């Protein structure tokens, strides 16, 4: 977070929104696949507290971008990176100054097998596996981060032939959880619950090995006059949402 002004603007708008919150509104949200579980948890709380209704569509950041560009009726965009929302903002499809980082993603090397990974990169370096799943590095920020890690460790060339790509980070997880790939780079949020690993084994990749995954939110033009859209963005910056977001393994 570098800009402060958008936040204060948003706070003002949200203040107005709260006055009108007696009227329950519906907000259409486009959400990056990796944020599926935390958003569902946040939406439940938000709906209870404000009476608004959240309708969420989950997908790959690039795919949602294409849909928004072509008139999809989304009002809030929660991306998995910071460049795609910035593009929409400068193209005039988002409300200027409404963009902020709602979460910072963590990358994890994960296996569905309980004793496969020992909390280090040893298994990755030994290379005794058939398939390593990643998300498409050109379309998904977590896929890009995964290739940065392989580059930093000098393993890219050695492991290239073992890489299998999911179209989104969700599909990469699917490949690993069905056992078709022994291990894969996924978002920590996908395998983390209530502050710990849900199942399998993992190596939480040090943040120094990949560029920060800033996940930015943007108020879209269609949501400009919807108080529920403003309220949701305000709620995302509040302490209740922050607690949920960090419990899923994101940083704030």
């Amino acid at each position: 977070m570098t800009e402060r002004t958008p936040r204060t603007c948003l706070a003002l708008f949200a203040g107005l929104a709260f006055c009108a919150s007696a009227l329950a509104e519906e907000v259409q949200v486009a959400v990056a696949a990796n944020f599926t579980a935390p958003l569902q948890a946040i939406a439940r709380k938000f709906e209870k507290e404000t009476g608004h209704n959240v309708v969420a569509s989950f997908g790959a950041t690039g795919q949602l971008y294409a849909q928004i560009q072509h008139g999809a009726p989304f009002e809030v965009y929660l991306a998995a990176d910071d460049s795609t929302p910035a593009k929409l903002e400068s193209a005039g499809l988002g409300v200027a100054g409404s963009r902020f980082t709602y979460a910072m993603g963590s990358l994890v090397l994960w296996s569905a097998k309980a004793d496969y990974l020992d909390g280090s990169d040893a298994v990755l370096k030994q290379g005794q596996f058939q398939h390593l799943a990643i998300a498409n590095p050109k379309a998904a920020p977590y896929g890009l981060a995964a290739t940065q890690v392989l580059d930093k460790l000098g393993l890219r060339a050695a492991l290239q032939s073992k890489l299998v790509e999911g179209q989104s980070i969700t599909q990469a997880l699917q490949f690993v959880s069905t056992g078709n790939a022994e291990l894969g780079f996924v978002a920590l949020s996908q395998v983390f619950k209530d502050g710990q690993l849900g199942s399998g084994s993992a190596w939480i990749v040090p943040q120094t090995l990949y560029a920060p995954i800033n996940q930015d939110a943007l108020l879209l033009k269609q949501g400009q006059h919807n108080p529920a859209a403003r309220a949701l963005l305000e709620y995302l910056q509040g302490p209740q949402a922050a607690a949920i977001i960090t419990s899923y393994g994101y940083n704030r």
Partner: protein
Amino acid sequence: MPLTQADFDAVLLTLKLASLTTVLLLLIGTPIAWWLARTGSWLKQPIGAIVALPLVLPPTVIGFYLLVSMGPHGFIGQLTQSLGLGTLTFTFSGLVIGSLFYSLPFVVQPLQNAFEAIGRAPLEAAATLRANPWDAFFTVVLPLAKPGFITAAILGFAHTVGEFGVVLMIGGNIPGKTQVASVQIYNHVETLEYAQAHWLAGGMLAFSFIVLLALYSGRRVRQGW
């Protein structure tokens, strides 16, 4: 033209997959269609329904079941592993097997219709002329069912070219092995490379139109006989 080597590789791979699948399906589909056309067994309807399933199931369902069953814990995966073949997901062979399921009805149904249309009379006539059943099949049935075979081959090929969901679920997007044209189009759209997406998508559109045009033109000529 903004197409890259990866795009051409994807097109070539698609044609290879569709050709192989079509040949295999004609070999597998002919006995199934023949049996379905002739049998009076109570199994005719259930088997016919199973063959037709891919017509109505979303490809994601077929892809999901294949992903699970071909995986190391699934029954196909266990079988291939015990044969020393490893698992079939993320391989070209895996795509061929997926395509066989996916395009099966498009080959079996035209063949079945063709066999049913021939009826019993020509075969009985052949039998009175002392042709053995195999002889009768190759010299009587095959020539009479030729239009059915052409339709089956074209539909099987074209439908496999258009396969997307199954490949997406079990392919892993590996260039030269599982990255087919439809997936490559999806990649281009996702990464906002719309010029390349347009070229490939336009090519697919033209190809599909020409295939269907050829199919319908052939039909009109045959009906005119």
